[in-house]
């Protein structure tokens, strides 16, 4: 398409190269191809000060619009959001909601409510797997980094409310980010499994969730003996469903988080339409419906 050509949009993705950010980028590039918009991809390594810094730099470059994602919260970005508005730049937010800043710029929001997503996953797990007081669960991820770990924090709090005892395995703690190589999680997860005699549930995301079969083998667990749930959806996760290692996942549809903001911003820029908000975290993939999902075209989640 060419209807949006000449419109400059800076699109923020999170990491330089992780599967989630890469799908975001794919979405944004697809939208660029569909609309003709001139999209520049900005990466922040998921580092908050860097994000804010890059946000300010982009405002200085005066593009037509900025799609800002994964940001560190209102206090840090509201002043810049205001500056962007004053400079006549359209701003859209994605991935993590920032109500005050969104109000400031009259922007749209595309993404999941991550905390809610975490809460929901936990609630659904309690229901589907019949968890009860005294059961144990392991949650793998990053914790206590708001914005980055809202999802996991939400999962933990809801599980704990249900009386489940949660062990947190922090990926960042072991020398950088063990998410990079899921192999490196094996020993600690095994230790945790051995430690938690009453283990009923393991929660993880992305590549770690996709590697669940290997963790189960290492810990000599039968598939399904302990339930596995988590976030994101890729080939390896679907395979996990097929082999019975994974029972539940919630996908926040990163492709849409890349695609929708560009469309919304183009509409706003070219035709003066109001910016759109989209919730991308509507459903769950379960043992009942994973086959349907697996049959869908690949590379979009």
């Amino acid at each position, binding site marked *: 398409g060419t209807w949006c050509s000449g419109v400059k949009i800076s699109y923020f*993705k999170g990491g*330089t*190269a992780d599967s989630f950010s890469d799908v975001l*980028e794919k979405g944004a590039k697809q939208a660029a191809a569909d609309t003709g918009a001139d999209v*520049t*991809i*900005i*990466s922040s*390594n998921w*580092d*908050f*000060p*860097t994000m*804010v*810094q890059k946000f*300010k*730099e982009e*405002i*200085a*470059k*005066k593009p037509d619009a900025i799609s800002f994602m994964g940001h*560190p*919260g*209102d*206090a*840090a970005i*509201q*002043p810049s959001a205001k500056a962007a508005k004053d400079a006549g730049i359209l701003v859209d937010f994605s991935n993590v909601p920032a109500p005050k800043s969104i109000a400031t710029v009259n922007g749209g929001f595309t993404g999941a409510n991550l905390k809610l997503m975490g809460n929901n996953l936990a609630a659904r797990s309690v229901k589907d797997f019949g968890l009860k007081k005294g059961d144990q669960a392991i949650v793998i991820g990053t*914790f*206590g*980094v*708001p*914005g*980055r*770990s809202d999802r996991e*924090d939400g999962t933990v709090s809801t599980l704990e409310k249900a009386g489940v005892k949660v062990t947190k395995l922090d990926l960042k*703690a072991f*020398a950088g980010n063990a998410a990079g190589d899921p192999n490196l999680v094996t020993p600690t997860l095994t230790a945790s499994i051995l430690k938690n005699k009453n283990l009923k549930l393991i929660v993880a995301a992305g590549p770690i969730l996709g590697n669940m079969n290997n963790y189960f083998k290492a810990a000599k667990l039968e598939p399904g003996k302990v339930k596995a749930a988590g976030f994101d959806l890729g080939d390896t996760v679907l395979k996990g469903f097929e082999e019975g290692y994974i029972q539940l996942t919630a996908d926040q549809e990163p492709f849409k988080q890349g695609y929708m903001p560009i469309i919304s911003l183009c509409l706003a820029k070219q035709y003066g339409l109001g910016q759109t908000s989209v919730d991308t975290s509507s459903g769950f993939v379960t043992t009942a419906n994973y086959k349907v999902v697996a049959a869908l075209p690949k590379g979009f989640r």
Partner: protein
Amino acid sequence: MSEQKKGVLIPERLKPVLGAFIFFVVMMVAFIASSPEVFLNIGIYSAVFLSLPLFAIMGMSLVFVTAAGEIDLAFPSIIALSGLAFAWTLQQTNLNFILAAIFSVAVGISCGLLNGYLITKLGLSSLITTLGMNFALIGLTNVLNNGEVRTLEGLNDSKIKSILVGSFGPIPAQMFWMFAIAFVLGMIFHRHKFGLHVRVAGDNPEAGRAMGVNIERTKILCFALVGLCASIVGILGILLLSTYFSTLGEAYLLPTLAAVFVGGTPVTGGKGTIGGLVIGATTVVFIQTGVVAAGLDGQWTSLGFGLVIVLSLLGHRKFSGRLTR
């Protein structure tokens, strides 16, 4: 020997600074040529100058440690821990800036002193000790902070914020602080006897000891300076964001180290340059902006960053002779 080299026009000690500067200019010319619309716009400079001072202030203290023949990899965690001290005190005291800054600086300096003590008094390798301490201190920070994000909204309207990180026309206030600190630390490094002792500590500590210089104390003070600068960086960073995260310091590790070496301070100790560091930090913070502006997105940035570091090293090599083993 019958002839002598003549006409060495550039004094030896200015070569690294000049080398770093030439490299910076060449890089900027390339950037301007590739994206004039970005780099001929003053706005981009205002934006880059927001964070430049933080890298530069951190880097200056690393010049001291490096010249003293040691290395410090623990500063990212010290930023996080002293930043926590700052944010926590602000919250507890209803934004008493002075108290919070004092506490933060005290925490930062204590961490530095601890590193210095382990390294000089117990004779441990600084590379590995500070690598270990970086883990230990970020762990401590996380345990204490327990995952809170500390929003300090009141700061947005505070006078102290506008003095420290406000702006004078297009120039962020922290740029002036950076130059002030660079002047003071530059004078100390190049002209004060402490600076001389630092360089001697890195070059030939035995000689220093024989001449009555307290080499251990000198080195410990260098590590303490890292702690001090880390807490300043933490404070400025928090003021800029009005928010505290425990990941505050993480992103500083590699760019700041790179700035030290791109700036012409050799890893081998015995010399260094504060002026060069400021230029090196500027080079480093412009790299990413320049690569993105050149239309190479995301993935290309680290390729560009890496190449610039290696190229700048080659430049120093040709210009000032081999810096390092």
